[in-house]
């Protein structure tokens, strides 16, 4: 008999940290004092924070119980659109935790940190080759900081051209971070609507691109999972009027080995190592958001840059046009080691195949669920497909209900209500690391839920019933915020 992964299980209760413990317990091995006690000035001394005292075993049990309330990609299928929840290889964890990297002080002189500098230089080259760009910075801490770096580069470039600009074009399918990042540079976002095919039309861009506009931010493939087929024409218009093209590479997992971002007109591109390059997402970070640029924008990259001369790697700050620094140190090294390990493990052919299989899986789901769920753009997709709840609305079942019911079947829901251009959007990104059996079983779950929506819609309204908690009151949480205990 076929079984979905969702099951009832023994879920253990666990109170908050400070609802347990007893003063005088400890979970820490304090060092033996081998120097004299020194007394700090009395007027500066405080009492120390009011933390609970717990034993090591209590702390371990606490977090193990909490961990069991989490869905994770190691435990199950996680088709969260736009987030590329692919398998996070375990060898990458081993490489990142080596004492040589994990224990290294960031301000070691170059002679004492050649290994890290060599790895960074090599990773920059690999990412440049994969994207088709010319130069790379590894410093941004996440995709949004990569976007900020990109906007700062736009800003610095136009200032150097002697003509600062005030606006930026952001299509309606963009991630919300795009306008927020642009605003940090003082740019006003100018929206352009996508056309009936779900992509940007050159005419729409031509009608708003002027001498006050710094450029355009394009996510390609876009958030509908469609390739921006007019990108070259769009880039020509923008470049022709002195602007630059920003590529949001959050969806790079669709086009590895297929597209040369430099040749299609992208000037600045950020990558999310925690999406395309398999570094784990950690329940909300840390990520890493390297930024790749064309040669003419290289002088603006953040400092320091890694340089190699006479057999020695060094950091150099000697880039007077640089936008400056984004983090105190050099980037999220732990994730750089993981991504580097991932690329070296796959090589060119497997990276390309990864994208092919990711696109195959998304199209397969799209074809098999078409008709069961409404498909607003019925055409070949890239690595993700977008459905809506239009057919289920007749039974008073919404996207939210479908998402919550999926939990009972043992799946993490897709991304919902995004992109905004599709009302009630259900955005599914299966990735290349999920087997056909897993995907087939998920499709069956989606079909079963569609049937339930017709026959017993209340089952969906009540979902989830198998999780640690049932639906939570988000309105009350925001109205009377209780942010500490």
């Amino acid at each position, binding site marked *: 008999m076929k079984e979905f992964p969702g099951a009832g299980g023994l879920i253990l209760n666990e109170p908050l940290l400070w609802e347990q413990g007893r003063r005088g317990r*400890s*979970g*820490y091995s*304090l*060092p033996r004092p081998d*120097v004299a*006690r*020194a007394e700090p000035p009395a007027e500066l001394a405080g009492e120390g924070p*009011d*933390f*609970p005292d717990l034993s090591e075993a209590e702390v371990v049990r606490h*977090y*193990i119980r909490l961990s069991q309330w*989490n*869905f994770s990609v190691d435990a199950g299928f996680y088709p969260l659109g736009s987030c590329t929840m692919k*398998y996070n290889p375990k*060898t990458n964890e081993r490489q990142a935790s*080596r*004492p*040589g990297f994990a*224990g290294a*002080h*960031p*301000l*070691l002189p170059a002679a*004492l*940190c*050649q*290994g*890290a500098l060599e790895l960074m230089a090599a990773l920059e080259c690999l990412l440049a080759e994969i994207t088709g760009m010319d130069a790379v910075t590894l410093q941004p801490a996440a995709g*949004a*900081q990569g*976007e900020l770096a990109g906007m700062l580069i736009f800003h610095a470039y136009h200032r150097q051209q002697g003509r600062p600009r005030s606006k930026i074009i952001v299509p309606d399918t963009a991630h*919300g971070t795009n306008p*927020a990042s642009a*605003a940090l540079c*003082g740019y006003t*976002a100018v929206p352009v609507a996508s056309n009936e095919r779900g992509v940007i039309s050159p005419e729409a861009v031509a009608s708003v691109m002027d001498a006050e506009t710094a450029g355009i931010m394009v996510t390609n493939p876009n958030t509908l999972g469609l390739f921006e087929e007019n990108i070259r024409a769009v880039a020509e218009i923008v470049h022709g009027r002195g602007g630059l093209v920003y590529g949001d590479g959050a969806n790079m997992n669709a086009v590895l080995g297929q*597209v040369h971002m430099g040749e299609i007109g992208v000037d600045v591109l950020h990558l999310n190592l925690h999406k395309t390059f398999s570094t*784990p*997402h950690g*329940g909300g970070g*840390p990520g890493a958001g390297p930024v790749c640029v064309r040669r003419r924008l290289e002088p603006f990259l953040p400092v320091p840059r890694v340089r190699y001369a006479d057999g020695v790697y060094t950091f150099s700050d000697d880039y007077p046009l640089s936008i*400056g620094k984004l*983090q105190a140190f050099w980037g999220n090294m*732990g994730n750089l080691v993981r991504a580097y*390990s991932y690329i*070296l493990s796959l090589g*060119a*052919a*497997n990276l*390309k195949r990864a994208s092919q*299989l990711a*696109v195959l899986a998304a199209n397969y789901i799209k074809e098999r669920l078409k008709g069961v769920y409404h498909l607003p753009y019925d055409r*070949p997709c890239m690595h993700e497909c977008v459905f809506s709840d239009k057919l289920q609305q007749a039974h008073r079942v919404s996207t939210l209900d479908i998402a919550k019911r999926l939990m009972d079947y043992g799946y993490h829901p897709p991304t919902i209500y995004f992109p905004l251009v599709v009302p009630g959007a259900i955005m599914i990104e299966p990735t290349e690391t999920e087997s*056909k059996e897993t995907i087939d079983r998920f499709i069956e779950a989606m079909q079963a839920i569609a049937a339930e929506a017709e026959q017993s819609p209340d089952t969906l309204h009540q979902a989830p019933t198998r999780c640690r*908690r049932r639906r*939570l009151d*988000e309105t009350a949480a925001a109205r009377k915020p209780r*942010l500490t205990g």
Partner: protein
Amino acid sequence: MRYLPHTTEDVAEMLAAVGAGSLEELFAAIPPECRRRAEMRLPEPLTEWELDAHIDRLAGRMATAPEAKVFVGAGSYDHHIPAAVGFLASRSEFVTSYTPYQPEVSQGTLQAVFEYQTLTARLLGLEVANASMYDGASALAEALLMAVRVTRRPRVALARAVHPLYRRVVETYLAPAGVEVRELAFGPTGATGAAAIGDAAELAAVAVQSPNFFGCIEDLPAIAQTAHAAGALCVAAFSEPLAFGLFKSPGRLGADIACGEGQSMGIPRSFGGPGLGMFATRMQHVRHMPGRLVGETTDVEGRRGFVLTLATREQHIRREKATSNICTNNSLCALTAAAFMACLGGSGLRELARLNYDRSEYLKARLRQAGVGLAFDAPTFNEFTAVFPPRFRDTYRRLLDRNIMAGLPLEPYYPELADHYLFGVTETMPREDMDALVREVQS
């Protein structure tokens, strides 16, 4: 390839369902002029053991303890990480989950972050802490942008004794927003006097770091008072939060925003990243605060649970009017820090802070006995600044050749502090190594 499960038959069946003849055909939507002409040129794939050997070689070219002796903190500290903390932080239920958008299947991360927010607020003496920022430097930059939003004033004052790399990040974030940064000099004691602030009338914030870059404790009450009198916020940055186990917290001393680096709390130095941006403020400013927040609520059965909340401040709702563009933050590092704080407890944190204080005071005293000058006389935590004669540069280089980093030369960051070296020690630095260092720098 072991990460790609599809067999030839799987691919054939799936292609048939899609109606495509080949994998390449799936990319027909990409116009020919957008297709890559040449294959990617990357190294041949490595086996798992070849990768081990390769990374081994690179990691072997790094100077780390115990072979290397690094007497430097400067924003990155070598504290002991309990095995339990490393173990819990590597649980794949925490590591391989996404941001907790779906609370019913994310209660583990959500409760852990709620606990982190609570412990952080208690540590910093403020009412509310966010779910984390990237690092101490970007947290400070975002704090200053927040102060500009709260006060609607276009100028901030920033102490020169704030970590020089943090100040460069502040400059990057604030320059395009048109916010002017005025520098506050440090005095002969190494601390920033409130008198340096001068006219604060147009200031959104007065920002100092305490303990500052030189390890000196700032006179936060006086600085906060001057800032408040002029209607500005007092922003207290830090790079070593362990200090608040021993010294009064920034919130208690009058800071409106406390922000800084939490790497000390159980996170490996990892060549500078990922770290943990800690960020706390008063409840009255919470709607101006950047970053994610977890809040307590109930489910339909009235049971306690946790959700991401106050999202109306954030980029995915407010778009260009958001309080920040941050979305992915450093959540796993926040969980790690909370587990570390839980292991220590209140009593342990206090004792660990004392042991750290004892050690730097010991090294200070030994160097002073050996005739080495100390640059500043303000009280310090973990770090202090020593002055050597110019000929010490040769000694310094010789020690580096032996993998000993005898402090951080300050001249590249402060041209006025030639021959000044910033020393840092923690509980992991044995007394015999400090004694050996003193002998070396004497010779």
